[in-house]
């Protein structure tokens, strides 16, 4: 800069700096290997490009998809499509009821139990750190013919001894009840998070402007907590869509879900190709749910944060 010759030191090798793109490679590889590749594999099974049967020729065909999706070729309604419909009804009902039950719980934690809310939240979640299977089996013991509930009913002389309530177990009721019980605490968490960070000055302002408690709730609290409600709804909707363990343990005829058909095809039949059709359909349904609710959640979160 002053015209003085700049003394040149020993040449240094330029430092190689990894760009942000380089760091993303490992997770992308994991996602591709663990998530995308299995779905591609299942897709190949669903069109009979791959088979699990030794020495069996394969040939690309859409026939199994045409058989499953309405209008089903040859027979309508396809029994597995019917099971999918029943399964979705159970899923949506359980999800709505879980959200409806979780909201008051979250509201109490956020506004009723202010100082001890985190302790109570932990106590609420504690049983769910145990094995899911053990909790379902515990329900089996409670709901069965000689179980806690029927025994209490007999002791109260509401039914004659030995004559249990028939729909208490191995029914849509028992499946719905166990699913509801399993998910309520987890649905409550996202709702609680949003309610907990709600600016209470807004509630005070609403009341100052003449709004009653109910109006404040419906016009201020509920809309602001809606992202949490939707997140909670999605939390239970998506895993319940593919549920099969609970119906297997406490369900009976008429209360098996779509996941049971998928599990059964892969476990008990050689027809993995048809099972792959059902499995891939479920993946597609869940993907669409994520797209729909994801867009809705993103919009709501932007509005909540603005």
């Amino acid at each position, binding site marked *: 800069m002053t015209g003085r010759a700049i003394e040149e030191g020993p040449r240094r090798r330029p430092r190689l700096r990894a760009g942000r793109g380089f760091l993303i490679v490992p997770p992308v590889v994991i996602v591709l290997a663990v998530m995308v590749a299995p779905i591609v594999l299942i897709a190949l099974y669903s069109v009979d490009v791959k088979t*699990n049967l030794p020495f069996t020729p394969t040939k690309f065909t859409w026939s199994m998809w045409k058989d499953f999706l309405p209008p089903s070729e040859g027979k309508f309604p396809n*029994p597995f499509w019917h099971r999918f419909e029943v399964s979705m009804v159970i899923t949506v009902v359980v999800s709505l009821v879980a959200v409806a039950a979780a909201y008051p719980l979250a509201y109490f934690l956020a506004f009723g139990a202010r100082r001890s809310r985190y302790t109570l939240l932990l106590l609420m979640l504690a049983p769910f750190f145990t094995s899911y299977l053990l909790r379902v089996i515990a329900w089996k013991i409670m709901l069965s013919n000689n179980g806690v509930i029927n025994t209490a009913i007999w002791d109260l002389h509401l039914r004659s001894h030995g004559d249990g309530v028939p729909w208490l177990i*191995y029914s849509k009721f028992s499946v719905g009840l166990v699913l509801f019980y399993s998910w309520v605490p987890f649905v409550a968490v996202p709702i609680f998070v949003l309610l907990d960070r709600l600016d209470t000055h807004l509630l005070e302002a609403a009341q100052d402007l003449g709004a009653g408690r109910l109006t404040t709730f419906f016009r201020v609290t509920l809309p602001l907590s809606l992202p949490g409600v939707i997140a909670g709804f999605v939390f239970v909707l998506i895993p319940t869509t593919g549920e099969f363990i609970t119906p297997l343990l406490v369900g009976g*005829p008429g209360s098996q879900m779509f996941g*049971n*058909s998928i599990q059964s095809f892969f476990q*008990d*039949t*050689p027809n993995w190709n048809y099972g792959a059709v059902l499995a891939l359909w479920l993946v597609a349904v869940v993907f669409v749910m994520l797209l729909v609710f994801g867009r809705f959640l993103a919009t709501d979160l932007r509005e909540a944060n603005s």
Partner: protein
Amino acid sequence: MGAAGLGGAVLLGGCGSSNSGGSPAASSVKRPSIAKEPGNLSILEWDGYQAFGTPTNKKAGGLSAGEDYTKKFGADGITYSLIVNDSEALNKVRSGQQFDVIHPCIENLQDYVQDGLVQPWDTKLLPSFANLNPALVKGGQVNGQQYFIPWDWGYGSVIYRTDKVDPADATGWELFWNPKYKGRISMWNGNTTNFEIAALKLGYGGHAMDHLSDDQLTNAKNALIEQYPLNKFLWSSEYTDLQPALQNGDVWIAYSWQDQWVYAKSKGIPMAYMKPSQGRLGWYCGFMLGKDTKNYYHAHDYVESYINHKSCLSLTNYFYYGSADATIKPSEIQNKAVAKSLDIGNPNVLSSADVHLQSWEPNEAAVQQAWEEVTASA
């Protein structure tokens, strides 16, 4: 493979050394000695058949099969994968999971062999092989090679509460279809077995039972669709599903093997094991050797510890299943009344007119698909 496979000379008493089926091909292959084998056996097995000394079978008075193996090699090296039906077993092996010993029933023998999933046993390594019933042994041969070592046999029938079910209703397989007992019935989630039951109810006995034509298959499917809503649930495991339901009174009528009748008796539950007018189902199961086993000699020792006389007798006295050991005498069986009523000292009964042996089905895949449609119908 059918009842005819058991017909002919059946030796009951005495030791016969007429059992052949040793496979020259098997013994000519060079293998590492037993000391050089890894020794960690992976067994595909039904729950309840774990070897004595393993974690779920340590109580005295239980099944003592496998004791000689665990005493010699220890129990730690044995891993069990459990199955609830034969379809699951075949699927697991077809999926590429590696097992040293597999314990399926006879009806899928052809599938295992044709798919190249198993290899023949070297019967010279099984000292107790000579004691096994020749007809059952012959049923386990394919192209003169012994792929299947028979061990256990028994019946499938209807078990029902004698204090809840009208005796006039309990005459045959049609009891499962009786709407009077809706919500008190539990069939087994055993796909092809339920089609065999429907076939017998519809009058497709004998050879037809496992060789249903398309029309017969449709009729059987429709019959099962009619029956399915009458079930309380379908049981998969007799221990975790069926036994609690029998004990607590959820279920009065069920499909079962005879061990559940013995269990119910031991718990004081008044149950009978039906002899349906159409005949009972019959089955026999045994051991197969994994194609790629690295524990060739350990596997033989393991199976020998199951087919020796002491273990076969334990099988009969514990489960009241028959065993393939032809040297068991009626005087050795503890509960003689039960043994007599089940005729378990007599594997001849599997080829009698009133027992329908569950056998290979050429259209098994179609039957299994139809069963999925049945369970999806409600």
